[in-house]
């Protein structure tokens, strides 16, 4: 999704949102990632007093920015995803799936994750998730997440079908969004 993302070309408008909308966004994010709400972590990410800016981009992507730093993003028909920087800070927030070494190269260039990459001996599925859930993608022998995906099958299906795209890669290391750490 963010492979060819760039500040100048992809972002069509910035708009500061009303506090009521901001509250809505916060509530949505909290509902999705309850762990952020528990200890008030969300207040560190999106302080109530800080202005939230939404960057609208091509492909109906909306990026939630605080202090010009992109934090979360969504499209019209997906829930909110955190950026990898956020995920690296709070790795507990999302269910994890781990791919084998062979897949890393492809994932890093933005390819979707095929089922065999998730079921082979090197890979593990830490959590059971349903279809259409945001997940963090980890890799064999590596400590940190390398991508954020959106499952197109449930983990059970991935195991039984074992063919085709299991997880759509939304955002990965070194893609456009990763490089654009600052949106103004």
């Amino acid at each position, binding site marked *: 999704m963010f492979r*060819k*993302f*760039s500040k100048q*070309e992809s972002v069509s408008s910035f708009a500061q949102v009303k506090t009521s909308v901001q509250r809505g966004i916060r509530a949505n994010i909290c509902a999705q990632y309850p*762990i*952020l709400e*528990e*200890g*008030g*972590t969300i*207040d*560190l990410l999106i302080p109530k007093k800080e202005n939230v800016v939404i960057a609208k981009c091509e492909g109906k992507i909306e990026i939630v920015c605080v202090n010009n730093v992109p934090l979360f993003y969504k499209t019209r028909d997906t829930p909110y995803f955190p950026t990898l920087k956020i995920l*690296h*800070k*709070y*790795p*507990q927030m999302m269910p994890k799936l781990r791919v084998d070494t062979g897949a*890393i*190269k492809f994932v*890093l260039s933005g390819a979707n994750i095929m089922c065999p990459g998730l079921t082979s001996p090197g890979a593990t599925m830490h959590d059971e998730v349903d279809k259409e859930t945001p997940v963090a993608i980890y890799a064999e*022998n*590596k*400590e*940190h997440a*390398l991508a954020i995906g959106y499952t197109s099958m449930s983990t059970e299906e991935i195991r039984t079908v074992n063919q085709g795209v299991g997880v759509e890669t939304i955002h990965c*290391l*070194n893609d*456009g969004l*990763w*490089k654009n750490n600052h949106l103004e």
Partner: protein
Amino acid sequence: MADINNADGGDEGAAEPLTPEVVEYEPVTGVPPEFCEYLPKDDFLKALPWLAENRSLEWMQANCKKYKNFDKIFESQDTLEEKLKDLSVSTSAREPEPKLLPGGKKKKKQKLEILIERSVRNKRKCITSVTGLDVFGIKLAEAAKLMGKKFASGCSVVKHPTGVSMIETQGDNQYEIAELIMKKYKDKDIKEEHFFSVVKQKKSPLF
């Protein structure tokens, strides 16, 4: 707040905000060091000097498996350092490549010139448009506001379909604009010879 929560729930861990984990990023490429080997080879070579300095040999061996010839390099420490030196020299000696736009197009080297064009709108009313300020690193929106204030007129940034954006102001004020720009943006090193006035698509020096 925190005290009350603790008294209520009694669960201290849950009431505290999570402590963010600090992930170390490799400064040149900006990714966690363990993923450097999966970057394009050029980027990996750029990251190498840092990796060699900040990571142990074992770590390098474990995390750079992709490059087979590295086994040879790793045979003894001396050669490793030498090799790395060679590598870093070769990377730094290379000429900086032309900056690529995300689409893969090469960025054109832009000429340092400011074009000022006057177009007649309605017999005695005209529009002055200024192109090329962005090349000097001037923020167009800011400059437009400045001019609008200075000339007490409408002033806006117009984006052309060709990708060039210009500032348009009401009224005929070619020279005033040039002077204003030179005065306001002294630090950008703009001189009189950078200004050109455009008449019927022909360029001539303004001063």
